[in-house]
């Protein structure tokens, strides 16, 4: 019987499989950042253990780093606890040098899930782990990539393996062409809206179909990034020419005869035609409209043409209660048209949507227009130093600045507000990030998840608008 892409990735990395199916899975790439690694390095030291293969590690500081004041150096990290975390990673990297380390202030520093692929450090066929749930992003390159906890970070450092069990296979096929103004973000929000935030729990999701194949690597990364928001630890897309073209000439991509050899093996990283999936979901791309979340979970999502749902119409009492609680937290009334929702802040960035294509899409909407006077802050945070440099080369920074957006330094920023960028209680934000949980962007903050183009349009209008009607 044929195998799925996930089956192939699993089979090629299982070092040992126990009687109950628990396996030792070999890890090719270990991405490390400052928040979830200090306790792991400390644990190694306490146990008197050494890392197994530091040449598998690529590290950066991204969660705590500020997006302004870089000229002040490390002193620019005003919160002393954040600074200690960043300095602890520096110290751990001095003691155990990695394959690559892009520290705070390095021009290649950035969000770990942006720089891995950008550097060619994420290659097809790899297993990729990181102490961060959005590691699913790297599945866009036909990798088995998922988030792990800090004990597992320590375990992978010490043994180069992860103790894990095989997940189920789910395929989400999106067929047809997307309408103008509809993007990868809208696809993945529509998928989560359909299957729910636990719809993919216990599964690895392969995203397939003509609409996925038509996406750039940036778009595929956006889709895989949010697999975890559907409950699936891993999302993935099969290799095709788009994958190969993206990787050609990247810093850590293979070169010379090895490149040809690598490409030949990568081309096999597709699901067999007769492979069986445990779950199959199909969406028609033509039915997908720009999406906006209204509640405190990514499944609480509607199209921009719709209104805030009415909990009274929900039959499931637990779900209804959740909706009611979300509406109170979000300060919204049922049946309010989404386009009547006024905003205080706009955030364009995060590992979901901070790559060059995302910035181009937002800039195209912003160009020649002004951010509404009612918007307190509209910020654009590039995913990495290299994305920032590319955007500046294309003049996108100027477009944003002239429109009234702030152009910031790279990092995770207001996606999770561990640095100084955050919402104040009650503030409402259009955000290109991935989680609209209570307090995610700051205690009491209200997050609406949208695509970069939708966020830029909302900044200009001061409220949500259907970007498809803009020219």
């Amino acid at each position, binding site marked *: 019987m044929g195998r799925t892409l996930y089956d192939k990735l699993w089979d090629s990395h299982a070092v040992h499989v126990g009687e109950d199916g628990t396996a030792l899975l070999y890890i090719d790439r270990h991405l490390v950042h400052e928040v979830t690694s200090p306790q792991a390095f400390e644990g190694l030291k306490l146990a008197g253990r050494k890392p197994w293969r530091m040449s598998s590690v690529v590290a950066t500081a991204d969660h705590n780093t500020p997006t302004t004041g870089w000229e002040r150096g490390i002193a620019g990290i005003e919160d002393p606890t954040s600074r200690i975390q960043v300095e602890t990673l520096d110290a751990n990297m001095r003691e155990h040098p990695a394959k690559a380390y892009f520290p705070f202030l390095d021009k290649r520093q950035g969000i770990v899930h942006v720089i891995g692929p950008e550097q060619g450090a994420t290659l097809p066929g790899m297993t990729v782990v990181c102490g961060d749930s959005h590691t699913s992003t790297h599945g866009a390159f036909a990798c088995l990539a998922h988030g792990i906890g800090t004990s*597992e970070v320590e375990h992978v450092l010490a*043994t180069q393996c992860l103790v894990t069990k095989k997940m189920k296979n789910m395929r989400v096929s999106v067929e047809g062409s997307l309408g103008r103004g509809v993007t990868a973000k809208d696809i993945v929000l529509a998928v989560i809206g359909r299957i729910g935030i636990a719809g993919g729990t216990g599964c690895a999701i392969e995203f397939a179909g003509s609409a996925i194949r038509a996406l750039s690597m940036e778009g595929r990364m956006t889709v895989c990034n949010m697999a975890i928001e559907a409950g699936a630890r891993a999302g993935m897309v099969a290799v095709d020419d788009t994958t190969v073209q993206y990787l050609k000439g990247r810093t850590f991509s293979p070169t010379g005869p090895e490149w040809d050899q690598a490409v030949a093996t990568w081309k096999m990283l597709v699901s067999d035609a007769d492979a069986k999936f445990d779950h199959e979901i199909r969406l028609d791309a033509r039915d997908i409209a720009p999406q906006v979340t209204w509640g405190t979970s990514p499944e609480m999502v509607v199209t921009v043409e719709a209104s805030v749902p009415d909990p009274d119409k929900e039959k499931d009492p637990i779900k209804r209660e959740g909706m009611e609680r979300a509406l109170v937290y979000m300060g919204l009334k049922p049946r309010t048209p989404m386009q009547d929702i006024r905003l205080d802040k706009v955030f364009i960035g995060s590992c979901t949507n901070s790559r060059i294509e995302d910035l181009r899409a937002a800039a195209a909407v912003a160009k020649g227009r002004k951010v509404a006077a009612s918007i307190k802050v509209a910020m654009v945070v590039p995913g990495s130093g290299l994305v920032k440099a590319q955007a500046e080369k294309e003049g996108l920074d100027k477009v944003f600045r002239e429109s009234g957006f702030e152009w910031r330094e790279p990092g995770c920023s207001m996606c999770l507000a561990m640095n100084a960028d955050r919402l104040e209680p009650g503030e409402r934000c259009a955000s290109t990030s991935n989680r609209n949980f209570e307090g995610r962007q700051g*205690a009491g903050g209200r997050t609406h998840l949208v695509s970069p183009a939708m966020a830029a349009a909302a900044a200009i209008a001061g409220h949500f608008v259907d970007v498809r009607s803009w020219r």
Partner: protein
Amino acid sequence: MEKFTVLNGLVAPLDRANVDTDAIIPKQFLKSIKRSGYGPNLFDAWRYLDVGQPGMDNAKRPLNPDFVLNQARYKGAEILLARKNFGCGSSREHAPWALAQYGFKCVIAPSFGDIFYNNSFKNGFLPVALSESEVDNLFYDSALPGFRLVVDLDRQTVATSDGSKSYKFEVDASRRHSLLNGLDEIGTTLRHADAIRAFEARRQAQFPWLFR
């Protein structure tokens, strides 16, 4: 790792679905480089009326009287009862750390976020999945003051302390074995060090670009 064998504990019901890890331990408390000290900030935004920051004297903060864990009858609770998809969201192991350091040893829910579920076992903290109707029954029973449950990992049962009701739960044999014996997982894996080395050597020969 800490062992888990049998627990007879007071039950605190948290009647919410999709409790995410941002709610379990908000991000401002993730700046610590230690494994300990997270208990006082468990469910911080729900538990206190002010906005919590690291370094605050939590004993002086205003408590939210409506939040279940602040009710006197649940003081000392060791078993948390919750609705489906508990621990969804981020990979932060700070979530099970905070739950365990608060004093919980077990959480019972119909389902869990995958990464949270994994992380829990690494910390001697047992996540137990029962069916939605069984959890519903337990929520009903937990209205009784002093409601306790006995969680027996060896027998894979959750029972009322008088033994009148008992529910069976599933857990992987290897996870169960590790937790019952408090095994050091890294030490266990390193017993396969030769197999890992051999696998690595084969892989490097076949795909040298992965090892550059």
